């Protein structure tokens, strides 16, 4: 188990990490997601003993890894790390993968067998004698992953391993990550700025904002119930509307958003400043209020912008506040929407996720 306890890292005047706390279980895939520069790499480097924290502790199986310099090598040899920019040594693919094993004094015969096996796992059979520098970015990253993997680490740290790769290489790497985790029970801590990748790979996600964990939870919790406005924005909720709770009747609150009264489910009481998070796909459009709709929130509005977005069309509707809605092309054609079209938007009270606005 990895325990992060009150970790701070200061570079000059700037705290790049502020009070980071988490527990990562053995065999877990734990994703750090957050925008670039939020401190993900710094945290991974601390865990890999490439840097020391300014305050706080990193415990691996209860041992403070930075406390005893004489055990540094032993602790580090239990981990492997894959960096964002794959660094390959100026030699063959085979020799590159052999590095960690050579450092550990593994006999040459065992190295040969291990590398033969791992080359087929990463899909680079027959590449052993190639010079590593001649590989493509995706191939280099696979070599880097193999190089970390062959030492059979308990913990594998990955710093944006697919940030510079094409979709096919990304998929290959993601499959390998899953496989390593399943077959060897390796604990994997993976940093990514791609929240969808976090969702695909991880059992738990920590959202890192400005050097600290804003929220830690399952992908479902993070994406359905973001804890605050920044997390909501980062996980891709496009509609974030400011308002104030006007009344709350047994958990169904009426919120005043720029003069429009929105009903939502929240325990927050009267007078609290809030942000309403509404996913664009939860918004229904029509020309009149549908009979028998269960949606509590129905507002007339006007379309102010239309933009194609892959197979969908993205509409911006002004109904006192601006709402983004996503509908299919076909639906857009059937509705005959144009800029300036008057339209009725509706969404359920339960589709509104309310977070307290602390700014």
């Amino acid at each position, binding site marked *: 188990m990895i325990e992060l306890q009150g970790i701070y890292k200061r570079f000059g005047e700037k705290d790049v990490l502020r009070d980071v706390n988490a527990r990562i279980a053995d065999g877990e895939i734990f994703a750090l997601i957050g925008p670039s520069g939020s401190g993900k790499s710094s945290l991974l480097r601390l865990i890999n003993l490439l840097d020391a924290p300014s305050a706080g502790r990193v415990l691996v199986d209860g041992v403070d890894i930075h406390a005893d310099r004489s055990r540094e090598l032993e602790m580090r040899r239990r981990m492997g790390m894959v960096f964002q920019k794959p*660094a390959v040594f100026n030699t063959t693919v085979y020799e590159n993968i052999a590095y960690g094993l050579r450092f550990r004094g593994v006999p040459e015969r065992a190295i040969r067998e291990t590398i033969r096996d791992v080359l087929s796992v990463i899909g680079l059979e027959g590449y052993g004698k190639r010079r590593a520098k001649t590989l493509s970015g995706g191939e280099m990253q696979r070599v880097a992953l193999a190089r*970390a993997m062959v030492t059979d680490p308990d913990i594998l740290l990955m710093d944006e391993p697919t940030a510079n790769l094409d979709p096919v290489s990304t998929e290959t790497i993601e499959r390998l990550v899953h496989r390593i985790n399943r077959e060897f029970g390796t604990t994997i801590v993976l940093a990514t700025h791609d929240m969808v990748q976090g969702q695909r790979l991880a059992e738990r996600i920590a959202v890192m904002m400005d050097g600290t964990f804003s929220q830690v939870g399952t992908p479902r919790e993070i994406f359905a119930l973001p804890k605050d406005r920044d997390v909501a924005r980062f996980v891709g909720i496009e509609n974030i509307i400011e308002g104030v709770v006007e009344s709350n009747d047994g958990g169904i609150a009426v919120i005043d958003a720029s003069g429009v009264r929105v009903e939502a489910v929240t325990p927050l009481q009267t007078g609290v400043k809030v942000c309403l998070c509404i996913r664009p796909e939860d918004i229904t459009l029509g020309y009149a209020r549908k009979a028998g709709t269960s949606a509590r929130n129905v507002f007339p509005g006007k379309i102010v912008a239309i933009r194609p977005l892959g197979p969908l069309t993205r509409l911006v509707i002004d109904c006192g506040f601006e709402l983004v809605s996503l509908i299919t092309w076909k639906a857009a054609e059937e509705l005959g929407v144009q800029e300036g079209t008057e339209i009725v938007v509706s969404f359920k009270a339960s589709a509104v996720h309310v977070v307290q606005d602390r700014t």
Partner: protein
Amino acid sequence: MNEIAEGLLRAVGLIITMNPEVMAITARSIMISFTATVIAALIAIPVGAVINFSEFRGKKTVINLIQTLYALPTVIVGLFVFLFISRAGPLGFLRLLFTPTAMIIGQTLLILPIMTGLTVSALSGVDQAIRDTLHSLGATKVQFLANVLKEARFAILAAVAVGFGRAISEVGAAILLGGNIRAASFWSSTRVLTTAISLETSVGNIELSLALGIILLLVALVVNLLVTTIQQR
């Protein structure tokens, strides 16, 4: 114009017929400069590594100083060594003046700064990502140092080649310390390519000068080719 063409032609003749004097001068020149380069490399690479890998106050100043010495005038080195090894000098009893050994000492001192400096650059040119990866893969201190050196091997090789190039092409120290002596035995003689060119030109023996000049260029070319080939492997 005609004179130059004729001189060139005869120079080529001297090379093709492997004129004994030309060959002796060439061999001596290469041996002296090669020895100086080996000795300088044995000092410069470890010293460069120490400077690169250790953190100390004034590290930048030391590197600046070394870089300034890249342009060290050869006659200054010659003069400096001359003062030490001349009869009256502190090392005069070794009777080194006007021997190939003296030339080796001079050339070694001459190329030490550039080889040390370029070794430092070569090592600091090894990407931080490579260093991190080595640490991350669980390298001990010694394994780390050895492998950073290994990553920088081509750049260090280039540093050695630059040193050799400067040694074999310099004339100031060679003439001051060697004296351009023409003697019967190979090792009592101190004529090397550059000093011989300088002397033969002044006495009007243009064809010999040209022949030696062509050889000097050829040596540079061969060294360069060797380095490039190794780097591309």
